[in-house]
């Protein structure tokens, strides 16, 4: 899956997702990438959030909506990301998720839970572009 957000200078936001899902799923299965509020959500008044992981678990919690609503309630992106992970942890012992929360001003935080999301030395990689800095890969430990 790729999930992406673009924000312009005025704070206008679009988010998008695309995936071929998990291997060997039962035919007819739809993952979380299609579900608003699950793999992605955006509200110009607040910011946006995106997730990736095991969609059958994630879509039950609408984690991107949760993160955006947490920021609307005053939490920082880092606090919003942590809140989402803890919410799922209350109910799921084993799961994999990486979540990006970004507020309407461009401040962002990334959280990762589960070994499946790690691609490089136990870390999850994501891409960022912003003024004055080249397109770059950043990593967060899982």
């Amino acid at each position, binding site marked *: 899956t790729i999930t992406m957000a673009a924000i312009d200078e005025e704070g206008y936001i679009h988010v998008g997702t695309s995936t071929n899902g998990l291997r060997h799923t039962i035919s007819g299965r739809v993952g979380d990438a299609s579900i608003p509020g699950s793999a992605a959500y955006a509200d110009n008044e607040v910011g946006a959030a995106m997730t990736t992981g095991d969609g059958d678990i994630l879509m039950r919690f609408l984690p991107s909506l949760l993160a955006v609503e947490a920021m609307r309630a005053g939490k920082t992106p880092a606090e919003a990301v942590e809140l989402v992970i803890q919410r799922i942890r209350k109910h799921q012992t084993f799961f994999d998720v990486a979540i990006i929360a970004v507020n309407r001003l461009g401040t*962002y935080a990334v959280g990762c839970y589960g070994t*499946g*999301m790690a691609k490089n030395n136990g870390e999850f990689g994501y891409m*960022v572009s912003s003024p004055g800095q080249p397109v770059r890969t950043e990593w967060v430990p899982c």
Partner: protein
Amino acid sequence: APLLPMVINTWNFPEANEEAWRLLNLEKGGVGQTRSAVVGGISICEKLQCDMAVGYGGNPDERGDTSLDALLMDGGTMEVGAVGDLRRIKSAIKVAQHVLEHTLHTLLVGDGADHFGIAMRFQNESLNSDESMAIWQNWTAHNCQPNFWRNVYPDPRTSCGPYKPLTTWDANATLSERIEIGPDNHD
């Protein structure tokens, strides 16, 4: 330094981010610039089959077919266009964009999503590849392990289907192991 504009995406897919960033700056101040950036960036990943986790030819289902899910959301209008279980069109994000821009619906799935995309003049073509067929054949050769079934017979932990539901079971004992999530196998 100013933080905006910005493009951010999950996984280290540089080509997608670079294309979105190029479009965002190319159309600076233009109407819908963030939309074209997201659609353009994700389209690159669909074409490149990023990590075989995006686009055609990856992660076949238990029948051996690849299907695609995609979504586009406008944070200003809160409009959403999405498709699920798309099986005959490679550009899922652009079909999702057409759902957003040319219908009053939010999510189209399955055959209906394919029919919609074809009506919107997207090419009707198989999403399977030699690689996805090889993955599927290897899976069937290994007794269809792992899979997503539980509380059915024959035992899904040792046998392929077709399965039928068990009428009684021990809920604690029959939880099958989940497929391992990884960089090339995730939603």
